[in-house]
């Protein structure tokens, strides 16, 4: 890795830290939302027709892009000329390169406003890779597309059910665009499952960011979870604050 990459990586870590220990909104710029530890915001298009016109995908460009991505992905299963001076370097390097490619793809799609199931398929395929860097970029790419059942399932299974707390802020922003009742039920069920048996670090982050998803129908279920959480646990403190926040906001 070159110095620029190291610098970027350190930057991401620091920004990720800011998500869990936000200090003041005044310290974050327009790109660095306190809920979003990443340099890029998700596009979060919830209704393609409202925001962009669907364009036909440039087949050639897309094929070149996909070819790069799949060539790199194949390195997970075949030997590529990538350094391995310690036991994890090889896989880390593939992940970093995939992330770069996916982010470039994301920027391009964001700029063109393209909406296509092919883009969604690519995003979901890479979201399933067990590497938080790759998941982060794939989630951003997915955010350029309208909500769909398959995308929601992908986010639940590959982000919320994973064990990387640094992705939760981004995932919650993305989930805000899933507005119909069916989606709400699935999201709620996923949250409840996570509180019961999710990653210990993820449920802390989830409890902190969940307040936007609490409503009159779900509050009692979260309350029930709260009552069964160990007293003095960080998850309980965070969830309690989220419910309290809902209670005061619901007076609107």
């Amino acid at each position, binding site marked *: 890795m070159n110095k620029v990459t190291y610098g970027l990586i350190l930057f991401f870590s620091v920004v990720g*830290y800011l998500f869990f220990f936000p200090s003041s909104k005044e310290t974050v710029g327009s790109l660095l939302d306190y809920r979003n530890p990443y340099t890029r915001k998700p596009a979060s298009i919830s209704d393609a027709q409202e925001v962009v016109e669907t364009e036909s995908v440039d087949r050639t460009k897309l094929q070149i892009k996909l070819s790069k991505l799949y060539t790199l992905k194949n390195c997970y299963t075949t030997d590529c000329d990538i350094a391995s001076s310690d036991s994890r370097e090889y896989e880390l390097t593939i992940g970093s390169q995939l992330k770069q490619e996916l982010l470039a793809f994301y920027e391009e799609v964001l700029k063109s406003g393209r909406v296509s199931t092919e883009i969604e398929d690519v995003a979901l395929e890479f979201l399933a890779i067990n590497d938080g860097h790759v998941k982060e970029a794939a989630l951003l790419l997915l955010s350029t597309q309208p909500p769909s059942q398959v995308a929601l399932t992908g986010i639940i299974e590959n982000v919320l059910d994973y064990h990387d707390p640094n992705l939760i802020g981004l995932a919650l922003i993305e989930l805000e665009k899933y507005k119909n009742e069916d989606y709400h039920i699935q999201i709620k069920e996923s949250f409840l499952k996570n509180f019961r048996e999710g990653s210990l670090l993820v449920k802390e982050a989830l409890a902190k960011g969940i307040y936007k998803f609490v409503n009159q129908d779900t509050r009692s279920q979260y309350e029930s979870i709260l009552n069964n959480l160990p007293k003095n646990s960080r998850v309980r403190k965070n969830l309690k604050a989220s419910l309290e926040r809902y209670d005061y906001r619901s007076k609107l």
Partner: protein
Amino acid sequence: MFFYYPSLAQNKTPDYWKCNNKSGGSWNFGRAPNVCDVDQFIDASYVSSVYGPAIFDDSKEVTVERARYMSEVYGLIKDTARYYIVSRKPEVSEEEILEFIQAAYAIGHQESYWSHYRIPSNKRFQYMRGDYGHGHGIFQVDDRWHFTAINQGRGANLILNMVYSLEEYYDAWQRAPSQSCVNGERDWRARARSAYSAYNGGASKICRFTNPKDKWARNDEGFRLKYDDRSWERYVDDLDREGYLNIECAYNEGENCKKGVNEALPRENTIYRSSSLGSCVFKNDGQEFFCSSANEACLFTKLNGSSSSYSMGVFKDFWDEYQVQQVPDEGLCSEISGIYSAGTALEVLKNINVRKTPAGEKIGVIKSGSTSQIVGVDISHPISQDRYYKIVYGKEIGYIFAGNKSDFASWARQTQKSLTYKLYAIAGDYVKASDSLSSVDDETIDLEEGHVYQVVDSSVEGHKLFYILDVNGVEAKFYAGNFEAVNISDFFTLSEKADDEDQAPLPDDPKDEVRYGRLSKSIWWKKTYSCPATSCSKGPTFKGPKLTSSKLEISEEKLGWYKATQKGKTGWIQAKYVYLY
């Protein structure tokens, strides 16, 4: 040896980074080289009080000390692995728990020879740093891949080190049975080895252990040898032994986490911990428990006065035959002398370390004479009444130690001085609403996002902050966040002046002035109109701050509407949807 944690990317930390007073060791259980000071990452006194039995003391006869140390650490690994897998899989079988525990023992052996805390000849509290100082502690959390976690103390704190590492291992443990190299869920040995391959080499290397030609096959072989040989058992006095710590308490960085006394009947002068009730104190006269989840040291002092001793214990399920009374948070700490409550302005009287948690990551030093706001209080010991204040420090919130019941007056005092560090407003200040909010006692009184209001009064209720604000001449109370969740700035930020003082008078011809703004944060996008009325034909769509960082350039204002341009597209939009910079 190390594993990689997703999205906490590589950091180019130098060899032996923050490795003060490095001491050597030997390649045997409990003493693997090297060790460095814990106080670079967590509080040494916390290590001493919570992890005392799990510290290898080099001044003792090494064989005897190793046997003692191994027995203590054996119990802690066992309890932590059990706590972890039961948390993730509540219906897990006892057979799987035991297999998972064995895998955890083997990881600790492969990574560090079960080495973590040690007091070498320099008499300092230190912990193991392998792999040129990059590997931290018993499961060797690597500071190049886990820089943030290491800085949060997740490498130096023994229980956090294991839990953090098991998150990664468990992921592979769950995937392993579906791999070609593992013959189903109960192929325990292959499952443990497979999960270790992925833990050590990455998710795609989950069957690496079956390939003896792999460049890193030696790591898999090392793990196999340890897993099969179980050589730690030769040192442990009782293989049924449990650890001395309450893992849930230690994982949440609590104080006094020792399991303590184990008796059939409750007794006085003991704090009993319960997951569902919090901390409880028993009183013989009424044969009842008094419980609280706020602060057990305050609870103990309130009920027992100036007792000179206490013990810890676990609340037994069958004690539910006794009466249990929940003690209200308000006034719980009233018997602790010289304690200042949240909302008080505090002046520190000496240079004091500021930490993320009472015993955790050091974030700086607050200088003697500095003043700050207290946002929380923690009493860590019911007899000495050691006190920690959660205070505002720069743009962060952290804990400072502020003495015990004998010497607190020399550490900090209440003050009326102007504040060096300030997070929330007091009477007379101005705050800017970060969101549109309604008053908690009159729903018809709303605040406008981005507008500035004068604070008539502020109050702290438990962990909650409230402001009474002057809203167009009416005083109304507003919820302003929760100190525990550190979300105050989601609701209000401190502001210098009120809106009307902030804004210059409108020019005679508003067309001549260009102003900038954005859509309100809750709006994703908004259609514009070709003229300032909803009956006009629709214009282009403006995107909100969730979708773009592009500003709105406002060139004209008419009848509560703005004529604005975003990315070259111009339209009319109602002023109520726009936040002006």
